[in-house]
């Protein structure tokens, strides 16, 4: 009997709850260090990004107006689903150059991170809200609210734990996002799309692109309908461009330089706060 041919997976983008190929039709080749696996990754274009922002904007109202408790439930659900795919991700992490031991540790930490933020989803508001003392007959209080559409340039080094660590605080806080996966290690990030897709995350809340950072960063940072931009990396020229472009529509620019995502200190409610805006309300006393 002839040997069975393997069925290879076509890696695609994740936009608006669907898995389209890049509209540009371009790909880049990704190979693991031992050259045992060679695969094509979509080289997403600015138009893919544009479509993703449209999807994220459409999803924003629904996602941000869900109850915080429900957002927490969905984050917890993602953790559950990831647990079921533990072996798949360990295999992919090993392909990306980790030892088995390190891979097991990373997937465990990643699952825990979802659970951690699932807990915070309906608690950070109480922690960060405040009643301000004013010298007039008003209640004056400040509460955090979701910023809107967030464009994220994920960490280059850590494509599962790092990717998830920047992604989860954004959606836990009611934002929607477009996230660019690590260029050199895109595998785990794009596989995450399948997990999110089967975890009741509404279409458009998370959109994942793969591609070249040099090509897309300009559009990520300049798009007028993006309300906040998270950049992970150390390239000073890129940071300068992100900050300058962010000024166009006064985007909130968040820069994570040299973050060690595996540390306990790389999680916390303050990461949620980075993509929240504080709203202050004056309310007459006695009404």
């Amino acid at each position: 009997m002839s040997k069975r041919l393997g069925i290879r997976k076509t890696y695609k983008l994740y936009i608006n709850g669907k898995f389209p190929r890049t509209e540009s039709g371009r790909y880049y080749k990704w190979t693991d260090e031992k050259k045992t696996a060679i695969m094509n990754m979509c080289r997403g274009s600015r138009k893919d990004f544009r479509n993703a922002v449209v999807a994220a904007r459409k999803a924003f109202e629904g996602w941000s107006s869900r109850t915080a408790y429900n957002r927490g439930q969905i984050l917890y659900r993602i953790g559950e689903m990831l647990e079921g795919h533990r072996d798949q991700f360990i295999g992919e992490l090993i392909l990306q150059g980790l030892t088995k031991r390190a891979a097991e540790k990373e997937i465990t930490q990643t699952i825990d991170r979802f659970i951690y933020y699932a807990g915070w989803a309906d608690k950070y508001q109480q922690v960060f809200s405040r009643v301000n003392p004013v010298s007039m007959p008003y209640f004056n209080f400040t509460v955090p609210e979701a910023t809107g559409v967030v464009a994220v340039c994920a960490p280059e080094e850590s494509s599962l734990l790092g990717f998830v660590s920047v992604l989860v605080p954004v959606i836990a806080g009611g934002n929607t996002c477009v996230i660019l996966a690590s260029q050199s290690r895109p595998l785990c990030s794009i596989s995450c799309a399948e997990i999110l897709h089967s975890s009741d995350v509404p279409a458009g809340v998370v959109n994942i692109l793969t591609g070249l950072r040099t090509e897309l960063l300009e559009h990520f940072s300049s798009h007028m309908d993006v309300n906040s931009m998270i950049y992970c990396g150390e390239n000073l020229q890129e940071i300068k461009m992100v900050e300058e472009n962010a000024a166009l529509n006064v985007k909130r620019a968040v820069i994570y330089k040299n973050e060690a995502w595996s540390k306990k200190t790389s999680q916390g409610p303050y990461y949620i706060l980075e993509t929240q805006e504080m709203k202050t309300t004056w309310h007459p006393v006695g009404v």
Partner: protein
Amino acid sequence: MNYHPQIHPIDQVGVGERASRLFSRSIKKESKIRALKLALSMIDLTTLEGKDSLGKVRQLCYKASHLHDQFSNLPQVAAVCMYPNMVEVAKKALKSSSIKIAAVATAFPSGMATLEAKLNEVKSVVDAGVDEVDMVMSRGRFLQGDYSYVFDEVAKVKNTCGKAHLKVILETGELITLDNVRKASDLAMEAGADFIKTSTGKVKPAATPSVVLVMLEAIRDFYKRTGKIVGMKPAGGISTAKLAIQYLVMVRETLGQEWLTPDRFRFGASSLANDILMQIVKQSTGIYQSINYFSID
């Protein structure tokens, strides 16, 4: 009069194929900017909601003449379109402007009123000074096969319009087949329509590529046969610049360059204008735009 429609069978699959081929053209760079500005100049900026207020209409008229003041060299839209009771305030708001005023009449959107009531309504908007009247065809009578009634109705409305241009809304979403769309187009043009228009915007599907192509071909055949020029107005669901450009390609390929003017082709739309503006700004700055920085419509 006794009107017998010509039988002109439509090849539904063929029309769909041709429409989708025309829609696959790619228009880029300078041509795109030209097309965008042309499309902008062809818009009938429309508000036809039960909740319309005087303020809303005033705002619409202001937008019609100040599309995006931060940007120079923009054309203005062709017309504003509204319910009859809003004409007076629009008239006042657009006093010193060349933007035309169109009103829907004849019991829009259903057309379910007596002929007398319809003619009175048309007369009242014409007396109020509108430039264009958008009437709805009696689809019920048409589907019953009472073509002579529908013909006479359009002819009488046209007569009442006087100098005002008459657009006849076929409401293609209720006509069921493309054969009927062709039949209704022929009927409306024979009865004196200056424009034929796809839809009220209240019935889905509204303007579809196939329907628009069939109507454009009817206009072309009518022009060849009689030498009379009839305009076309797709309306309902055309909200993106991309779609608008695709329709322009279709018009150009079916009726020729002479039809690419606001006198002969219009878009009935409300949110289309902002999408086109966003595209124009994107084309010249290279930066994707947000609706937040454009006036509400």
